[in-house]
């Protein structure tokens, strides 16, 4: 669905590249996470793939369309949810979606259906200038679905949303992905990436450092240990066991059988820990 090869981009048209030699492929039906801190080159790459920035060097195709000569028809297939909400503040939520629905050559979704889907039902006739930041973000997210996209670009889709709404948004993403929609997710939130993505790419200083599935990364970079807290003679004891050594496995089984287990955790690494390990810097 997306093929990128040797992508470079410089805002100042010199050797000061915001994106350097970026190459990756995203298969149809995949959720691909593009992870990195602010200024890493995530939005620049997404900007090139969506035609907001002109391709300077390299090759890229999206949904079968060459990015070097973008056809307006490509946008019938793609949807884009921006990190910064960008809706007409003087128009109501319904007017906003109705207007955008007329800008595509394909069958579009009912604005009210989308408004209800993102939990804005009852607010459809309110001007978006009166919306909270979170409500605007949800409307921007809803708008990205108006043309039933098969390629969906999502830039920080849960930023600024309360946990319940963020969970709903994640469910919507999963639901659409289950129907075959390919998702290119740009985020610095490792939890949402871990939960949603089939594969993730770590990008820092404009370069991709690693591409793999979250599961493989955890296996590769996590510690194979289990930490157990259990009660013994009225006291709380805490021990760590290897999940590889047979001696430790036997001991763990014995504790599980004989003692009262209070807590038990595997010591697998989080994506954030792996990111720090791989790139040498955090995501803030």
């Amino acid at each position, binding site marked *: 669905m997306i093929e990128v090869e040797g992508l470079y981009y410089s805002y100042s048209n010199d050797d000061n590249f915001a994106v350097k030699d970026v190459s990756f492929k995203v298969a149809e039906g995949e959720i691909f996470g593009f992870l990195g801190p602010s200024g890493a080159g995530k939005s620049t790459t997404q*900007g090139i793939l*969506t*035609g*907001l*920035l*002109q391709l300077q060097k390299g090759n890229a195709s999206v949904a079968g369309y060459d990015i070097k000569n973008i056809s*307006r*028809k490509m*946008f*019938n297939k*793609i949807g*884009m949810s*921006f990190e*910064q*909400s*960008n*809706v*007409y*503040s*003087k*128009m109501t939520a319904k*007017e906003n979606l109705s*207007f*955008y629905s*007329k*800008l*595509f*050559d*394909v069958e579009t979704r009912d604005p009210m259906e989308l408004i209800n889907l993102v939990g804005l039902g009852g607010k459809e006739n309110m001007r978006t200038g009166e919306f909270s930041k979170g409500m605007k973000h949800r409307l*921007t997210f809803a*708008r990205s679905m108006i*043309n039933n996209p098969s390629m969906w670009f999502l830039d920080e889709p849960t930023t600024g949303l309360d946990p319940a709404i963020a969970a709903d948004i994640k469910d919507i993403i999963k639901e659409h992905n289950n129907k075959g929609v390919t998702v290119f997710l740009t985020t610095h939130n490792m939890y949402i990436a871990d939960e949603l993505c089939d594969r993730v790419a770590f990008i820092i200083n404009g370069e991709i450092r690693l591409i793999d599935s979250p599961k493989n990364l955890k296996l590769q970079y996590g510690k194979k240990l289990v930490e157990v807290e259990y009660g013994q003679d009225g006291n709380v004891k805490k021990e760590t066991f290897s999940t590889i050594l047979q001696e430790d496995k036997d001991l763990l089984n014995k504790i599980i059988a004989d003692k009262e287990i209070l807590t038990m955790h595997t010591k697998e690494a989080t994506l954030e820990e792996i990111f720090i390990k791989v790139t040498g810097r955090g995501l803030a």
Partner: protein
Amino acid sequence: MKLLSSFKKELILASRGFYFYVELIFALVILVVLLFAIPQNFSSTSTEYLHFNLPQEGREIFTNNILENDLDGESEIVEIEAGGKTFNAELIVTDESEIYIVDSEEAVRMLADSEKVIGAVIELNNNNQLHYKYYLQGYESTRFKNLISILFNESTDVLEERINNQDVRPLSTDYEPLSDRENTIPPLVAFSGSLMGMFIMASYIFLDKKEGVIKAYAVTASSVWQYLMSKIFVVLLTSVVSGFIIVMPVMGFRINYGLLLLLLLTTGFFASSLGLLVASFYKNLTNAFGVIYLLLIIMMVPSIAYFIPGWDPFWIKIIPSYPLLQGFKEIILPNGDTIYPLIVSAGFLAVGIILFAITNIRFKKTLSV
């Protein structure tokens, strides 16, 4: 269909915004000024203050001579104030002047000083010859001062004969001049109807940039030119409405409104394309204000030449607002040239298309800005 949808959206936004009403209210204010503040024709009568320091007989001769030109043949006794004092005066009103004959030189001097007009004292010198003393304001030209001097060194009969023998031939015999009120319409329509479009257009774009909606539009199947053109349509609509608000009540049905509509549309297209081009280089109105202000000042220079027909250098004619003003003038002239506004319209349309094409390329390249 996409263009129509964008146009409808722009109309909704404009109707809920500020600038749309500013332009229309501005047009209404201009209309009120035109109808109630600007007279049909500006008064060209001058005011003069005279004192005859002469014997009664001489005073009567001079007064009666002037009185012959009075509109009703009778003078009026009035009181006039200057420097905190009140003076009695005999007022004689002619076609060209309001002449106040006062009874002291002090009155002439004070009135000339306070009213900033010319005063004169006619008296006898030691040889019993007439002596003329003028109180000028200091800004009179040498030519004017020479004229005053020659009046008393040359026989008035000779002067009159020479004036009467001058051969004056009008270049055009079917030329009907505009009234002063009508003559002020072209600059007002040009700036409120057409050139204001440049500023309004830039404002609309900067509002969209602020809200980030240009990016959202850019990832739809609609072209950038449709987005830009829909905005131009709204600016053209307000230009035409405000232009007609100013022109119709003053000119009635005496002019060719088809031509006016054409010129408003083509010049509005040019101005809004220029506004788009300027907006494509800047992030907000504050950054672009200097350039917009400079362009408006340059565009206003030809209006000086418009009101001073004797000052018409070549470089002024290449400023776009020059043909714009002349085009509007030809439309409202009773016997105006209909070809000229057509040529001007074609020129503005052509330049507008070029500017629009450049702007379209600029916006495609700078959508993320």
